[in-house]
């Protein structure tokens, strides 16, 4: 916790430095491009993620000296305090008072609706750097809301076929009983059963109430699956990874899941119990490409820990925005043209080649299957497979493109 607080202070200093740089920039002929970050910096379970996104985005923008097409880039940060109404009020302040050219946020779906509605009505580009709700780039999509992170379905869609192909024919599902849990399990299940797999049991413990996986793990053992496919993140992920081992289930089956289960943010508290878990995600620190290597080197030099998937998304978001601003010749008055520029650019990110699909406004990216393993006395990652160019079908989105 102290670490988090220190990280927050650090982020504040970075933010202040950025603001300072921005103010210096206004002295020049052209006004700066303003990007408003609306993230839960002070409260709730996502403070670490908000800081990770902000810090990594700063790393991306530093590379160009906070300049795009001759204009200074200025970052403004507002704290949602993990409340939807505050998130919307802060977004309004950024747009109407500070006159930002685009918004970046939030972390989780709870605040997304509030930001989404505002951006859609105000016709301000909103770039989502993390939240994965399928509908936002599916049936509910907006021409003003773009996503640089992932949709839940995009993460797991190809995993069922992959696991069935590797001989995991009988799988148990386990996720919290809420929207993201059902989206990720549902997205895995259909292709998996179509590929000949069987779901032997699926369980959805109540979200927020549960603090012991014992009963659920007991039921999974009785169902005798080849593997368990899960979606958990943060403290519950740590609890599950450790209890899976304590109950000796690792002797009988494989633990797998959406890769947040063994995120770099959780690995330190999970310890060696995290070794041998299979994950599927849009990013893993072990990805072997020059952009990722340089990102990890700089992140680790600055923050003394491994950059996570949230950081990588923040970095790539910064790169995409920078590329789009350059493409638009630094012009930001025409917001529709700005969105078009976001659609037009192609970048090499930490996750490989990235672009925004004009049909859905969701990112098109590679998805990685990886496994955690003991490397020396620490747990690290090994990439098992790379699924290229994963693109969502429109899913009811009528942007056409």
């Amino acid at each position: 916790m102290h670490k988090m607080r220190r990280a927050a202070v650090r982020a504040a200093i970075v933010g202040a430095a950025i603001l300072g740089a921005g103010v210096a920039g206004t002295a020049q002929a052209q006004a700066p491009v303003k990007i408003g970050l609306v993230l839960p910096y002070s409260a709730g379970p996502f403070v670490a993620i908000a800081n990770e996104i902000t810090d990594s985005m700063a790393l991306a923008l530093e590379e160009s000296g906070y300049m795009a097409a001759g204009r200074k880039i200025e970052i403004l940060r507002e704290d949602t305090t993990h409340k939807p109404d505050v998130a919307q009020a802060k977004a309004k302040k950024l747009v109407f008072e500070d006159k930002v050219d685009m918004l970046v946020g939030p972390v989780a779906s709870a605040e997304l609706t509030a930001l989404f509605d505002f951006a859609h009505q105000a016709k301000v580009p909103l770039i989502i750097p993390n939240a994965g709700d399928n509908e936002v780039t599916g049936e509910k999509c907006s021409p003003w809301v773009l996503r640089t992170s992932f949709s839940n379905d995009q993460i797991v869609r190809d995993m069922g076929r992959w696991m069935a192909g590797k001989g995991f024919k009988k799988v148990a599902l386990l996720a919290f009983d809420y929207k993201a849990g059902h989206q990720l399990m549902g997205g895995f299940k259909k292709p998996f059963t179509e590929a000949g797999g069987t779901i032997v049991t699926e369980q959805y413990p109540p979200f927020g109430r549960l603090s012991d996986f014992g009963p659920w793990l007991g039921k999974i053992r009785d169902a005798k699956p080849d593997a368990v496919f899960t979606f958990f993140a943060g403290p519950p992920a740590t609890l599950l990874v450790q209890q899976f081992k304590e109950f000796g289930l690792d002797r009988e089956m494989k633990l797998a899941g959406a890769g947040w289960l063994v995120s770099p943010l959780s690995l330190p508290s999970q310890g060696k119990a995290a070794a041998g878990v299979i994950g599927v995600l849009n990013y893993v620190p072990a990805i072997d490409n020059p952009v990722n290597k340089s990102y990890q080197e700089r992140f680790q030099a600055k923050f003394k820990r491994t950059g996570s998937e949230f950081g990588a998304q923040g970095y790539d978001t910064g790169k995409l925005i920078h590329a789009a601003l350059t493409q638009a010749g630094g012009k930001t008055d025409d917001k529709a043209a700005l969105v078009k520029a976001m659609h037009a650019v192609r970048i090499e990110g930490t996750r490989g080649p990235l672009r925004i699909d004009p049909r859905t406004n969701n990112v098109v990216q590679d998805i990685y299957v990886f496994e955690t393993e003991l490397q020396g006395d620490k747990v690290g990652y090994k990439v098992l497979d790379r699924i290229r160019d994963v693109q969502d079908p429109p899913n009811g989105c009528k942007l056409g493109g």
Partner: protein
Amino acid sequence: MIIQLLNGLQLAMLLFLLSVGLSVVFGLMRFVNLAHGTLFMLGAFVGLSTVEATGSFWLALAAGTLAAAVAGGLLYLGLLRRLQPAGPLKQVLVTFGLIFIGLEVARLVWGDYAERLPGPASLAGATEIFGVYYPTYRLFVIALGLAVAALLHFGLERTRLGAVIRAGVDDRTMTAALGIDIDRVFFAVFVVGCALAGLAGVVAGPVLSVYAGMDMGVLILALVVVVIGGPGSLKGAFAGALLVGMAETFGQVWLPEVAGMLLYGLMAAVLVLRPQGLLPAGPRA
């Protein structure tokens, strides 16, 4: 099946450690200390900080128990004793307010994040029992709960202090009239109950996660235990904890849709059929 039985038993022992103090205090002083869960949380957090500082789970166990006992003692002397003339309702309301104060203080001191209290290395891993692998630490929780229950049973049934406490539960005016300083007995019982809540907090740390607000869920379960078992009764708390632990564990897995209802249904049934609880305290035949 065996795993679920063991899971149920383990949860029951945690609930017993937590609710036995609540129950006996209720029986003696006729009011529910709603801040009991807060002391459980305090024990867990102090245990967590101790483990982080020293790396020793056993030190954490001692520190968490002690912290809850001291906090309970101060609470009794500073607030609850003064409020005694005002009647039980005021006392309950004050302890209700303390829940929220405790929550905010925990947030301020320990932050907003859930952390797992690491168990002792000597109890890591799984042990084979009845043909299944079961986490060794959880077997320790079961053993600890049974040991505390046995100790308390002996203390209440076989010692002079136990006799005084039982007399106090039955009729405190009469007990006081016999020349027994009932206030001191109250204080001792209250502090021991709080210490057990702190102990339960540390013991729960490796099984559940430690976070601000962890007290709410277990407090409700503990209150159900007290109501089902019958206030003031050690055997009642034990039986109630077993019932609630098993109902909660099996309900969650077999009937997840109605798991919450199952528990309160059980409580309602007990209240209708045996309003005094399953094994109430009181004069024995």
